[in-house]
């Protein structure tokens, strides 16, 4: 088998297309599914965070306002300070410790932009606003000295901390800053706060949700009096679950893809296989076994048409081949018979001394057989040349009436000796474009045929007239007619309706086949009607020559007519 590029294979191309479509469909579906599930989970987490933040905000509202105020000059500057220190003490170094703050200290100051109390109507949901800048999670914060008593009172209700004990701790945590930046409160279990809480946060964070790099989901909320509430919750388990869900999606997508591709491969094979079977059968059909056919029963509907067309083609081929081989065998049969006559007669004559009369008789028989062979060979050659389009035709403007008249005159003695009345009615002149010798042969074949099949006392009539831009030649006899079952075969080579009669009168079965060939060379048509036991009528139509046609000189001078009709030339069917 020769190597062919895979893209030349319809099967491979089909598979590639199939794979692309499958990947797109599965990928799209999985993506949508993943997005949906992820956002559902996130919304659940966010809802908890929101609830916790609202709870804390409500708690803060319940606190005395001074608790929420910061010391005005102690505005922290977070930049450049070590995290640990900031976590441990949000105030700048060197600032005097101010814990616990004096309860009455409450300097009135304008609320800062970033920490407006926007009230419960603000929009905290800004999901998907990205994770926080990636930074390595810091070491767990060192224990801080316990806060003041108010701070200890702030906490999350049990309903929001209901994480079961198993697995990693994923309880929510929170941090609340005052507007000045100092930490007001944190969740009770400080260890659950994943990253260092800085006092710089108020300057850089808008209310809303965010992700921390360690896998925590956090939410900022501006509380009363510029306090900033951060509620967070480690979501590692959810993230892990989502990750494994994604992997499962990928795995099942690949599995579906594999199953789909395998199915497609099999189906495409089942499409290809009948084609291969058809090709195999077709390649096995050769000249020696043309009768084979493609079996259509097991073939898919779409291919049955192809198989049927091929089968029909094989049938036509077979018929043509059979016709050809029958013609060959008929031709050889027709040649062998006179050959056998010559051979046997000569052999018999030579087998012992004979009288002069016997020799003469033998030679006459041989001569007759030889002439028959010559006629046959001539007929076969004419047909072969006509088939090959190499017939030597000298087209010119011919008066068909004169050609026919000469043929009729040639056959008149024969008709008289057979006591057949031969009448002709020719309308002249009737110019057609053609070869006079070939046209004479057509007329001669038809006429000799008519005489051959007409019994004594019958009549044969020839008529010629113009009819609808054509010359119409009719040869009609009152002979034995052609049996109905044979009427389709009349123009077949070597077909003879009445073989014994035809042979006895010198026919070789080629006459009408030659007529048809010659008429077709002249772009005319030949047809017949025949009633058994009543007679036969042949009609030849030849296109009329237009008045301005060339070569007027050739009108009416047919140069080489076939052999005179004293002996019918025996081509008749």
């Amino acid at each position, binding site marked *: 088998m020769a190597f062919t590029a895979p893209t030349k294979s319809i099967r491979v191309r089909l598979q590639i297309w199939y794979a692309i479509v499958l990947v797109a469909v599965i990928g799209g579906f999985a993506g949508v599914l993943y997005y949906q599930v992820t956002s559902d989970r996130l919304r659940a987490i966010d809802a908890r965070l929101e609830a916790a933040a609202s709870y804390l905000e409500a708690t803060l509202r319940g606190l005395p306002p001074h608790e929420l105020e910061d010391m005005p000059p102690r505005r922290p500057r977070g930049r450049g300070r070590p995290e640990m220190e900031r976590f441990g003490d949000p105030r700048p170094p060197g600032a005097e410790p101010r814990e616990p703050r004096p309860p009455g200290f409450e300097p009135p100051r304008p609320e800062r932009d970033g920490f407006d109390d926007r009230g419960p109507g603000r929009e905290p949901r800004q999901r998907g606003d990205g994770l926080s800048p990636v930074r390595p999670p810091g070491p767990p914060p060192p224990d801080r000295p316990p806060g003041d008593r108010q701070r200890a009172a702030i906490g999350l209700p049990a309903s929001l901390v209901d994480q079961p004990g198993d697995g990693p701790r994923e309880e929510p945590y929170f941090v609340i800053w005052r507007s000045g930046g100092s930490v007001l409160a944190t969740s009770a279990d400080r260890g659950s706060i994943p990253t260092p809480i800085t006092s710089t946060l108020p300057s850089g964070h808008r209310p809303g949700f965010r992700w921390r790099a360690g896998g925590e989901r956090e939410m900022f909320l501006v509380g009363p009096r510029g306090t900033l509430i951060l509620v967070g919750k480690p979501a590692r388990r959810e993230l892990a679950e989502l990750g494994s869900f994604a992997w499962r999606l990928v795995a099942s997508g690949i599995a579906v893809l594999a199953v789909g591709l395998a199915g497609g491969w099999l189906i495409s094979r089942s499409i290809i296989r009948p084609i291969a079977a058809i090709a195999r059968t077709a390649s096995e059909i050769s000249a020696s076994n043309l009768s084979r056919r493609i079996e259509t029963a097991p073939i898919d509907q779409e291919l049955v048409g192809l198989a049927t067309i091929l089968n029909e083609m094989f049938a036509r081929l077979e018929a043509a081949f059979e016709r050809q081989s029958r013609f060959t*065998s008929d031709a*050889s*049969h*027709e*040649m*062998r*018979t006179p*050959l*056998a*006559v*010559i*051979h*046997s*007669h000569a*052999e*018999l004559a030579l*087998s*012992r001394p004979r009288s002069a009369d016997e020799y003469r008789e033998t030679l006459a*028989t041989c001569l*007759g*057989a030889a002439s028959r062979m010559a006629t046959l060979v001539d007929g076969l050659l004419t047909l072969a040349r006509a088939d090959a389009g190499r017939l030597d035709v000298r087209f010119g403007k011919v008066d068909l009436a004169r050609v026919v008249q000469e043929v009729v005159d040639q056959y008149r003695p024969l008709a008289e000796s057979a006591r057949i009345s031969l009448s002709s009615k020719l309308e002249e002149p009737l110019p057609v474009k053609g070869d006079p010798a070939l046209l004479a042969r057509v007329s001669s074949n038809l006429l000799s045929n008519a005489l051959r099949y007409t019994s004594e006392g019958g009549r044969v009539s020839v008529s010629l007239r113009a009819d609808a831009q054509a010359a119409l030649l009719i040869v009609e006899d009152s002979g034995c007619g052609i049996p109905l079952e044979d009427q389709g075969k009349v123009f077949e080579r070597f077909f003879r309706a*009445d*073989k*014994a009669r035809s*042979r*006895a009168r010198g026919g070789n079965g080629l006459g009408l086949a030659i007529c048809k060939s010659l008429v077709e060379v002249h772009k005319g048509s030949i047809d017949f009607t025949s009633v058994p036991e009543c007679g036969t009528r042949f009609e030849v139509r030849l296109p009329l020559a237009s008045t301005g046609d060339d070569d007027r000189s050739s009108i009416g001078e047919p140069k080489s007519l076939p052999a005179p009709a004293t002996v019918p030339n025996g081509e008749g069917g």
Partner: protein
Amino acid sequence: MRVLVVEDEPELLQVITRALREQGYAVDGAPDGEEGLFRATSWDYDAVVLDLMLPKIDGWQLLETIRKQKKTPVLILTARDAVTDRVRGLDGGADDYLVKPFELAELFARLRALIRRAAGQAASTIRIGAVEIDPRSRTVTQHGKPVALTAREYALVELLALHQGEVVTRTQMYDHLFDENDDTLSNLLDVHVSNVRRKLGKDFIVTRRGMGYAIERS
């Protein structure tokens, strides 16, 4: 020996008939299948020469019909030379197949072989006592010396020799020795028999009263 030739080509029928008669056969000719069938089923021919392409009833059909009734050896003589035709002919019951154009000598040889085999003889010469019959040259020798017999006398000796030990009835003898062209006078057979007896010895042919003639097995 009587042979039927079924051949639609008149000139060929004529030459085969004539040649076979010159060989001493009684020959009937039939120009088409219908007449061929009628003749072939009406008489016991020693052999039939059959063309295949025949008017009215073709050779295949003729052969099939003959085979239903007779064991007559049939030689197909045809222009159809395809192997499939030969196979079909031989399988259809023909005993031999010869393609036109043919040598008359080969046709004669094949007919002799067919007739000999049909009579159960394998050897090409028949020996009866001191008499030896050679169908190839159609000669008879006695003690190594040739005996001059007419064609009809030879045919009579050959017929009886092929069926040696059996009684051949007068009717059978007429059927096999004379064709329809012969004037079969009632005593013609007796004349031939007495001529043969004169040439080959009185006891060569035995008369079975009321039954026919025979040559005793040697």
